[in-house]
């Protein structure tokens, strides 16, 4: 164990796991259109294992919801998909995640590049303390797009994409901190859209929002799946049922069940899934 911890690069550490008991059949359906394929993913924070042998294929241009009680590893799993989890220095991983058939843990794969493809929206709205325009233009700018006309177009398109253009088109140069929480979160979504990612990860994006803003963001997610593959972590099972096509249920770091949303909520195959969605725990 110590040897593993000393290894600074936490890519593909081969290591046995304590609980390799997940039944892969029934969880992993071969899907022709999967955009991210996760195989046997294990993750440790120091010596605490947070994910056990997770394998799932994320479908393209659909909404995949991840549900589960607090501390079940769903946010950790999400952050692994764009390697943000590695910002915690003690994290170690093993297994494989392929984004469009490329191994993202490979040393050749640049995490900055990955994150332009796999964007992220966070739990609490986190706009930069800059104008709305500069927030949305931030991504394109750091990736070398400097021309004003192009940036103008990107900002407009992204804000339209996040369904907030009409509200903000006259306030583009106001500080984003003056906006309401719901508006801030949609600006953050616009900021993610501005680099035209392929996949958008959303980590409980509505948990800090009021019901009306939540409804707007949910509606937005429905529109966005036309163009983007969305993976959304949520505490709210009704939300998962409302907006997702597929749902994954995590418990204690294991993927218990992954199925079409209707299927999972109506005929859960696993007793634990059933207990959770019927509110017996969690």
């Amino acid at each position, binding site marked *: 164990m110590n040897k593993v911890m000393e290894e600074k690069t936490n890519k593909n550490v081969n290591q046995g796991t304590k609980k390799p008991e997940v039944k892969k059949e029934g969880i992993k359906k071969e899907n022709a259109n999967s955009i991210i394929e996760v195989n046997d993913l294990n993750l440790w924070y120091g010596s605490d294992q947070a994910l056990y042998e997770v394998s799932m294929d994320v479908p393209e241009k659909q909404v995949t919801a991840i549900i589960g009680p607090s501390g079940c590893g769903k946010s950790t799993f999400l952050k692994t998909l764009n390697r943000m989890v590695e910002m915690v220095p003690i994290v170690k991983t093993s297994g494989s995640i392929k984004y469009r058939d490329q191994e993202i843990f490979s040393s050749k794969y640049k995490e900055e590049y990955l994150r332009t493809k796999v964007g992220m929206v966070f739990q609490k709205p986190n*706009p930069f*303390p800059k104008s709305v325009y500069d927030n949305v233009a931030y991504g394109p700018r750091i990736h070398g797009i400097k021309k004003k006309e192009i940036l103008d177009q990107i900002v407009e398109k992204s804000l339209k994409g996040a369904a907030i253009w009409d509200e903000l088109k006259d306030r583009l140069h106001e500080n984003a901190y003056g906006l309401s929480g719901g508006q801030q979160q949609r600006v953050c979504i616009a900021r993610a859209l501005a680099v035209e990612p392929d996949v958008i990860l959303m980590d409980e994006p509505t948990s800090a929002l009021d019901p009306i803003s939540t409804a707007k963001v949910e509606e937005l997610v429905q529109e966005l799946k036309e163009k983007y593959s969305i993976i959304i972590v949520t505490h709210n099972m009704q939300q998962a049922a409302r907006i997702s096509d597929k749902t994954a249920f995590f418990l204690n770091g294991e993927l218990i069940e992954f199925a079409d949303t209707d299927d999972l909520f109506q005929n859960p195959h696993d007793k634990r899934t059933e207990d959770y969605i019927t509110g017996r725990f969690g």
Partner: protein
Amino acid sequence: MDKGLQSEGKMIDVQQMIERNKNKKSFGERIEKIIPFFLLLCAAVSVLTTVGILFTLLRESIGFFSNVSLIDFYTGTSWSPWSGEYGVAPLIGGTLLITLIATLVAVPLGLMSAIFLSEYANDKVRRVIKPVLEVLAGIPTVVYGYFALTFITPMFQAFIPDLGIFNALSGGFVVGIMIIPMVASLSEDAMNSVPNALREGAYGLGATKLEVVFKVVLPAALSGIIASIVLAISRAIGETMIVTIAAGATPNLTFNPTESIQTMTAFIVQAATGDTTFGSTIYYSLYAVGMTLFVFTLVMNLIAQYISRKFREEY
């Protein structure tokens, strides 16, 4: 269960006890009233001291300006009080030259240290470097002065052969070293208080570490950083011992850092410790220079306060 507590077999009623104690017009109650006055008195000491200093400075300066005209004082370009020339410009020039050199040393070094400590260093490294850096601030300035005179100047002389023993360059350089901790420590605090969510937001867009530091953290911490720089500059303006020892005592209106100069503070030391007669014009000039110095540092402090309010980014 019965309400109330049992003690030594007797029932006691807490409310009754409170009532009884309250009725004793006690010592404690008087203390409650006196303490705020006492605290106010303590707070007043520093305010009164400031007022006292200001009053003395003003009164004695007025005495000086009845002998030397205000216009001559501020427009004259020669400072030679022992032969009756009271143009303060060379002293102000000397102070500004020292401050400029010190700023050029302290701002880049301090800021880079702050960036390293806040964004790059791991906990272990930070725990070693930060206290060491802060020790710099605790070194007596007289030690710095001799360090400048006996170590820095000879070192510089190896590169600049015609550097005098007393020169603005070494003095300013060491004043700069002295104020590094101020810039570094306050700037690091400012950067540390930038929420991690902002960094994550930028990383999530594919930003590199450098882009996060320079395009997110620095702008967000800018008000704190500028305030730290202004405060450090004001400290450099008022610095006395280093420049008295290392920069010389030659009132010299020059911007050549290799020459010997005299700052406002160094003149005050010279006049206050020399055999200046009480009541002479030179004696009063001390206050006029002190007043000028006070205005300089006051203005810098006001600027620092204004900046940290004005540019505070709400996050």
